[in-house]
């Protein structure tokens, strides 16, 4: 297989990661930042899962008819990471709700402006 085709999974991951990074840096809206962080997070999931793939392998559930399995270890790590991810996302969203109650805004620059006179 040529180099370009064999590595395309990493490039998709990097592209998604950078989209997430760009959203986080460039957008002042806090909710959009959380979506950006989640895209970043999913790209890491995809990186792990695609590394665990073995060509011609089957899902890692033992069966007599199957000889080649994909690597189960990344699956375990990512499985728990997803659920932990939603918990931390919920925590971040809760913080945003409280920020909105305190400042009346979810835009970063407006919050900075309100803090400036202090």
């Amino acid at each position: 297989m040529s180099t370009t085709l064999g590595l395309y999974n990493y490039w998709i991951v990097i592209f998604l990661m950078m989209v997430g990074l760009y959203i986080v840096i460039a957008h002042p809206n806090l909710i959009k930042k959380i979506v950006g962080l989640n895209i970043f997070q999913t790209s890491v999931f995809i990186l792990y899962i695609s590394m665990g793939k073995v060509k011609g392998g089957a899902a890692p559930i033992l069966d007599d008819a199957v000889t080649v399995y994909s690597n189960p270890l990344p699956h375990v790590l990512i499985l728990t990471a997803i659920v932990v991810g939603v918990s931390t996302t919920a925590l971040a969203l809760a913080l945003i709700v409280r920020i909105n109650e305190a400042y009346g805004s979810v835009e970063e620059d407006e919050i900075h402006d309100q803090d400036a006179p202090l």
Partner: protein
Amino acid sequence: MLAVTALSVVFLRDLFAIVMLFGIYSLLSAGFFVTMDAVDVALTEAAVGAGVTTVLMLSTLALTRRKEKARLSPPSLLPLAVATITGLVLVYGTLDMPHLGDPDAPVHQHVAPRYIEQSGEEIGVPNIVTSVLASYRGFDTLGEVVVIFAAGLGVLALLGVAGGDRHRARVSAMEHHLVLRVITKALAPLILLYALYIQFHGDYGPGGGFQAGVVFAAAIILFAIVFGLTKAEQVITPTFLRYMMGAGALIYGATGVVTLVLGGNFLDYNTLAHDPLHGQHYGILAVEFGVGVTVTAVMISIFFNFFGRSSKPQEEEQ
């Protein structure tokens, strides 16, 4: 597909559309995980990403505002430059990486072959992911359950206790939609049953405590959205939820302590029965049950807290 969806998130300003797109994005990545043989992960991502995360984000939108503010100054080029340069450096880094699906890649050399070859004899559970999750890496999973528990506590502390306008939207706006009510009534028990199947069949097929917890919570959340929070809280009271959150982590930890008392190492299930394989079965069952209880309770409790704060009726979902 994934890339296009992610890109459109950048350009959209309507936060509602962004959240919906993110749900689609999650569903797409779940499909991708299936093609990569990661069925357990796909199940989790579909339930979590496309289900629970989307609902939570919608609840947040209901509490804040729907549109992103239009910016006066043109977007600066610095973030774009930073992202592009970092991306290029990373692409340069991948040139040495093993190809997709290469069986000789370093990932497959270290500890994974042992799991694949010997977990059948050592654990006796067909689903390797379950045996690695609950037995080989039991410590790790215990830590993760505690993290989830802590996140649930954090949301409770932020939204639950210090009540602002907590009692406004107790009755759902969808209560008068006959079709929704009938369908929800028919669906909710089936979803609950499916969750139990995932929970207890996790040894043999894809599934386990994490997925089951999220699916179980999804059923309750659906019920709460359609019938209103008051009725949902009659089914599962918040106090009960708080006990359940702790109880799940406790069941997990207690299993570890029991194995200690019986003379093994912490979370060494071989001591639980005369036959090590049976011991492993009991241990995994107990641990997965603990995981399921905590995840369910935390998810429902997080949702109740968000939903209870809503000052206007919820938008529909699912």
